[in-house]
């Protein structure tokens, strides 16, 4: 048995936002996929990265670390990382480790995109 993760990447709002949709398990075995996707999104110059966790059923400490590192790297480039669509089990973990106080978290991807655009507009 091996864990699996799929990541779908999209560019929105004239390339200003990267949307990463995660499905499956984000753990020590799959976390390098998200590292690559986050690096690619940052190199592409997006102002915000929205991570849709709607189909993510499991997250381990490795996954949490990569989210945190991804946010730190994005902010060094003046970008932000926003999360949306959390499953209850994943939300429980994020709240337990204090990430809900660090990451902007939204109920839907539409809300996350609107917030990313509003932030981007304020900074332009």
């Amino acid at each position, binding site marked *: *048995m*091996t*864990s699996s993760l799929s990541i779908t990447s999209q560019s929105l709002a004239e390339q200003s936002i990267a949307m990463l949709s995660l499905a499956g*398990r984000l*753990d*020590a*075995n799959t976390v390098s996929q998200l590292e690559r996707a986050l690096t690619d999104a940052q190199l592409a110059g997006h102002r915000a990265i929205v991570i849709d966790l709607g189909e993510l059923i*499991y997250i*381990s*400490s*490795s996954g*949490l*670390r990569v989210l*945190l*590192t*991804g*946010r*730190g*790297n994005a*902010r060094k480039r003046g970008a932000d990382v926003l999360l949306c669509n959390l499953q*209850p*089990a994943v939300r*429980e*973990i994020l709240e*337990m*480790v*204090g*990430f809900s106080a*660090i*990451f902007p978290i939204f109920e839907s991807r539409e809300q996350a995109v609107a917030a990313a655009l509003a932030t981007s507009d304020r900074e332009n």
Partner: protein
Amino acid sequence: MDIREASLTIPAQLDQIQRASSVARKLAEQIGFAESDLNQIELAVYEACANIVQHAYAHQTDGHVHISARAEPGRRIVITLMDTGTTFDPQTIPAYDPQQVTGGDGQVSGLGLFLIQRMMDEVRFEFRVPSSDPSQPGCFNRLTLIKNL
């Protein structure tokens, strides 16, 4: 008491440890743990195995982790993980504090251990335990995880 047990030995590889956490989850499910508890048990065992693979066997490629789980209906599940890797002192691991994490540079330590301790009711480390199995002499490390129903 209708005690149920399961055990499994896996190679110390990251792509194997989901097998161990699944065994513990399935056994816990059989004695009626709620879904949120099952998620916590699965994650605690996953984190514990990942720590063993990444730290105890950091310099060893042929290590194994033995997992045994004992479910006591109406009472609790006791999960034991054994390895023969490098020992460590849990007291030396910087404590993860969710109130202090800022995410500035993305560096955190002690997160796995924090999750294990939050998910389980009892966590006990024992190191260099002498083997009582004549076919496998030497010492092993033992981590015991207990969650009450």
